């Protein structure tokens, strides 16, 4: 199932959002416009702006007034992906060559900076102090998370607490911001803003854990990048932490990981180990607990069509295969 099937009620808004995104760099040079077009055409679920649009409908503002904010969040997300791809030296994203692969690190780095500048300029136009504070805080925490992740690479001693710290900054804070930001800009009640913030946080945590599981088990063609790519970069995720901390086969895994450099055969062995142990069910179980928490938050919101759709989005994250 595609997320777009769940959100048909805001089809028009999504079209307007896409149009806004495509035109957001129309004042910039053609190089930049083309790069943005490339990234937008590469796909993506537009999960963050969709959540912003839905969250805004709990307020008094019309959704139309929120489209630019939703676009700003997508641009901010894209900026972080572009920089991540340089740092991870990724060649593929969503099955297509990364900007980094096509134009090189320099171009991508500066393009990412342009995207962040554009996104912040749009956010500022809402003239909302709290929104400004929230957005800049998330941007800062995302950077901190990225630095921490890099320094924790190949550190096989890290625990679940550290993993949660990292994925909160990597994904959950941005998704939480998309929900809170939409509600704030839409003029929703304070209580609703907070509930949506927590809903976004739990959803984001579940999203990233599922993403980390898919990195080990998904079909490479559907995933759009090589299976086990986190492992190759030394990023320690929940399935691996499970074996290293809680499984009887941790010695076997430690023996493989003790090598200076992992070759293809080692990766294959680790993937096999992950499939044979309860690493995947364990991780998915935690993801499901976060989904349950997000669903519980929704019970505090008015029982309407929007809440129903947010519920379906949470269930979509739970069952997603890519």
């Amino acid at each position, binding site marked *: 199932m595609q997320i777009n099937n769940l959100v048909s009620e805001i089809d028009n808004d999504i079209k307007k959002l896409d149009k806004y995104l495509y035109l957001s760099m129309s004042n910039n040079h053609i*190089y930049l416009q083309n790069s943005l077009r490339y990234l937008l055409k590469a796909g993506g679920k537009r999960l963050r702006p969709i959540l912003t649009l839905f969250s805004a409908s709990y307020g008094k503002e019309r959704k139309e007034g929120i489209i630019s904010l939703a676009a700003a969040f997508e641009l901010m997300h894209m900026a972080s992906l572009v920089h991540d791809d340089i740092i991870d030296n990724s060649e593929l994203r969503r099955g297509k060559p990364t900007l980094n692969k096509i134009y090189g690190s320099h171009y991508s780095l500066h393009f990412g900076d342009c995207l962040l500048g554009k996104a912040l*300029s749009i956010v500022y136009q809402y003239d909302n*102090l709290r929104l400004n504070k929230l957005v800049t805080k998330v941007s800062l925490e995302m950077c901190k998370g990225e630095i921490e992740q890099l320094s924790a690479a190949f550190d096989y001693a890290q625990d679940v607490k550290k993993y949660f710290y990292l994925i909160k900054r990597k994904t959950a804070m941005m998704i939480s911001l998309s929900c809170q930001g939409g509600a704030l800009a839409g003029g929703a009640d304070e209580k609703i803003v907070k509930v949506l913030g927590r809903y976004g946080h739990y959803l984001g945590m579940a999203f990233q854990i599922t993403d980390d599981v898919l990195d080990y088990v998904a079909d490479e063609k559907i995933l759009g990048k090589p299976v086990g790519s986190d492992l190759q970069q030394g990023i320690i995720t929940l399935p691996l932490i499970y074996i290293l901390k809680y499984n009887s086969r941790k010695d076997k895994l430690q023996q493989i990981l003790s090598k200076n450099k992992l070759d293809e055969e080692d990766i294959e062995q680790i993937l096999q180990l992950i499939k044979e142990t309860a690493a995947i069910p364990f991780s998915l179980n935690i993801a499901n607990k976060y989904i349950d928490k997000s669903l519980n938050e929704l019970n505090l919101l008015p029982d309407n069509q929007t809440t129903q759709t947010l519920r379906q989005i949470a269930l979509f994250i739970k069952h997603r295969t890519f």
Partner: protein
Amino acid sequence: MLEFMVKQFIPELIAVETKAKHILHKYNYLWLHANMQQIDVEERLWLPVLCLASAKTVKGINQESVQVASHLHLFNIATQLHLNLPKMNQKKLQQEIKNPILLGDLLYSSIFHDISQGENPSYLQDFAGLLESIHERVILRDYPFKDDFWPIHNDINMCGEMSEVACFLGARTGACAGEMMKGLKDLGYLLGVLKEVWNTNITYTSYLNCWYQAWNKIELLSGEYDFSLYENLLIMMGKKWHLKKPVMLKEVRA
């Protein structure tokens, strides 16, 4: 070139460096400070000095001027980190490029976060706009059209834009508005262009008009304000190119 200007603002520049340090300390990334020190002093202080000079010219330096100057100081360092990335793109260099990218990102985010927590979040717009335009310039510099003039031109414009914003923001912290603010902004751009030409040793003749335009601006704006800092800066630049200060109308009248 900047030495005599730095001397004018030593206490303020100490405050600027301390504030920048505080921002880093707040986020527990004081180790970044060591990396900053590696950047050439003149390169590091150019924007804060312009901002302070601009504030001093219109009203006098206040707490806000120092705050903005310290943000400009960090912004400049973040930009330098992203600009000076190793050129090659091989895997062995991956580690070398990771740190400057992440440090630059962290600095930019720290600046934006600090501005949004402060009393005047309107600076957020100025810094966000600057971030976008500076990096667009870099892209156009590195991926030029067929015309060879473009890369240099973009480098020079980049310095012009950053200096323009520094002077503009400095004037704003001095509650300056209208023609004076616009004039200082324009002067900032011209000084930035000239500084880059001065630094890169390219033929100055193509930019000679900027030198004269800067003097014209000073003549137009001076009146009740003291522009001697800028005048001295232009004289200093002119010396390298064997240019003498043009005759100013007020001097002829005097």
